[in-house]
């Protein structure tokens, strides 16, 4: 069976087949999503396109062209028809960036960090506090906001905070790194887990003595960066109206806006991650992961490199945190629970520790599974519950099925199953990390 598929893949990967397959999927997927914006299978078909684009052998220029066509034209247009897809892709990008950051810490440098989401919280709260009315509410009780409070900063400061969030998270990463430098493995995991909780509990309780985080109620509203001016938006709106079928609203434009912003950030994150990996710094991280004693004996300054790994990993999360706060216009401590850290870890392990394409795939797969597949399954079950259908043979009536059985609530179970199954059957992930092959000069001679 396995050889059959590899043979099939080999056959599909020769001659003109790759381009035919990719274009076929692209067209079928696009039409499918355009016609029935709510169909999960149509969306999954469309998502197969970038994957095939990555795996199949196609001329690089053609690849980039199709990729850009998909990202810049097809997805936003389809997304305005069903805003939910842009939300899915936005979440994919956010979690892919988190997974890339965590991949630097765990995958490359081998430092097991279970409190990674704390850095995400640092970024999110940085913009939440300064980009909302919170600064003028410092002395008021949570929930009893006086009227007439003002936003403390103009929305354009968002751009500055995108960078500040990155820097702030990196500094937090170093602060966490300093005390845990001597720890390895399980001990490190426990301390970082605690650190993640500390940040969450701080967010929960820093409404007294001064109301910095507004406690469990969270901070809202948070400002969004302004959309581009009318002379750009006008033509785009006119262009899109006939294709989409209605005049796109500002909310829809904001979704497209954040979609592009997330994509730009994820592109930068991928670029930074790949460039770091293939350099003196990345090699030093991998060496530390493989054998600390040998690495330090080879002249690698352990302290500096570990702190660099914590800082670099954290900075990805910080940037995405700022973006997340602006996108949701709301942050609360609940978002930064331990389960989130485990979620990101699941993505990294599913995709492949240390593998950049792997963790992006892992993040996408887990996000789709979480907010689409499980959700759809829940809807399907509740539809069955309301019908008169009966399971044959055991004669079980669907309407007697317990309401507690709601797949959308089984996220934790799914994370757990993924982690265990991966560890048993494919510890190196679905797309395992590969070392870069260098050109063999000696073969040419």
């Amino acid at each position, binding site marked *: 069976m396995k050889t059959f598929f590899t043979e099939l893949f080999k056959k599909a990967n020769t001659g003109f087949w790759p381009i035919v397959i990719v274009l076929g999927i692209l067209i079928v997927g696009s039409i499918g999503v355009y016609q029935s914006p709510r169909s999960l299978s149509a969306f999954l078909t469309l998502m197969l396109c970038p994957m095939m684009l990555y795996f199949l052998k196609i001329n690089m220029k053609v690849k980039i062209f199709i990729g850009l066509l998909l990202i810049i034209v097809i997805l936003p247009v389809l997304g305005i028809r069903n805003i939910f897809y842009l939300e899915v892709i936005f979440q994919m990008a956010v979690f892919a960036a988190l997974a890339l950051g965590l991949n630097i810490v765990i995958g490359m440098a081998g430092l097991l960090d279970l409190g990674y989401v704390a850095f995400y919280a640092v970024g999110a709260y940085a913009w939440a506090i300064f980009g909302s009315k919170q600064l003028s509410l410092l002395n008021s009780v949570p929930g009893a906001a006086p009227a007439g409070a003002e936003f403390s900063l103009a929305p354009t400061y968002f751009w500055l905070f995108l960078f500040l969030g990155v820097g702030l998270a990196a500094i937090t990463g170093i602060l966490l790194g300093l005390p845990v430098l001597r720890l390895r493995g399980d001990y490190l995991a426990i301390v970082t887990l605690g650190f993640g909780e500390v940040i969450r509990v701080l967010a929960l309780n820093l409404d007294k003595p001064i109301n910095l985080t507004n406690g469990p109620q969270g901070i809202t509203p948070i400002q969004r960066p302004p959309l581009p001016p009318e002379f750009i938006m006008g033509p785009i709106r006119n262009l899109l109206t006939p294709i989409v079928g209605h005049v796109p609203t500002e909310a829809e434009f904001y979704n497209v806006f954040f979609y592009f912003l997330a994509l730009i950030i994820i592109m930068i994150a991928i670029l930074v991650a790949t460039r*770091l990996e293939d350099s003196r710094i990345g*090699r030093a991280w991998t060496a530390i992961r493989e*054998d600390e004693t040998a690495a330090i*004996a*080879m002249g690698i300054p352990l302290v500096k490199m570990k702190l660099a790994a914590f800082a670099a990993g954290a900075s990805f999360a910080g940037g995405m945190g700022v973006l997340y706060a602006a996108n949701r216009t709301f942050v609360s401590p609940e978002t930064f629970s331990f389960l989130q850290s485990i979620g990101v870890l699941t993505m990294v392990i599913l995709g492949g520790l240390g593998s950049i394409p792997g963790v992006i795939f892992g993040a996408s797969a887990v996000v789709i599974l979480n907010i689409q597949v499980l959700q759809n399954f829940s809807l399907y079950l509740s539809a069955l519950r309301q019908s008169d259908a009966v399971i044959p043979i055991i004669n079980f009536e669907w309407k007697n099925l317990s309401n507690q059985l709601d797949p959308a609530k089984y996220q934790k179970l799914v994370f757990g199953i993924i982690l265990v199954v991966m560890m048993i059957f494919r510890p190196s992930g679905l797309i395992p990390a590969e070392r870069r*092959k260098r050109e063999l000069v*000696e073969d040419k001679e």
Partner: protein
Amino acid sequence: MALLQTTNVVKRFGGLVAVNKITFSVDEGRIVSIIGPNGAGKTTFFNSLTGIYRPEEGEILFKGNSLIGLRPDQVSARGMSRTFQNIRLFGSMTVIENILVGMHNQLHQSAIDTLFRSKKFHEEEKEAEAKARALMEYVGLKNVGNELARNLPYGGQRRIEIARALAANPTLLLLDEPTAGMNPNETADAIKLFRRIRDEKGVTILLIEHDMRVVMGISEHISVMDYGEKIAEGSPAEIRKNQRVIEAYLGREAASAKD
């Protein structure tokens, strides 16, 4: 003046004195060995020299500067490079990458250079790669640059370790039982390689060894350790005749029975 000079170095683990007042020196350009039975404290002494352990007492001077209190990476940066008794390669990195890690302190690309892929970065990487490849061939490995280090046979892994240590441009190369587990042919090749490293690259070599044939064949000066102490020192011929050395290796009775 000696390249490496230790005076009364003591390293204790709880009540156990693993290295007891070792005074020892290595002159530049020589091949020097430390031998001794299992558990004599040879590797502990090595680890004290390279900064993995911090000796409780004594002084270690390398090129006239003290090494006490320096971290292993700082020791490495001063020109002392080592291999390990049980091979410690970076198994899931390629052979070339292993050697490139050894060059860590030779490379000066900053994070900015790395992120923006500056001209300096490309030039340095290219140069480093060429140098790594040359080192790989120097130790006698061909066409394995892209292999993962853990997939190489034992002898090959030993060679990579030496190449990796040489990549740091050392003045003193410490080899911890470099021929352990090798067959006689491989051992002979290894001895040739050590000589070449000394003669061609001018690197001083200090090795710990178990195999008497290797030690006697290559060393110009031998120190013998037993129970953490240095019990003898001299040329191979002198060591071979030394009564205390024979006792340490064969046991007292065997030594007297032989007489």
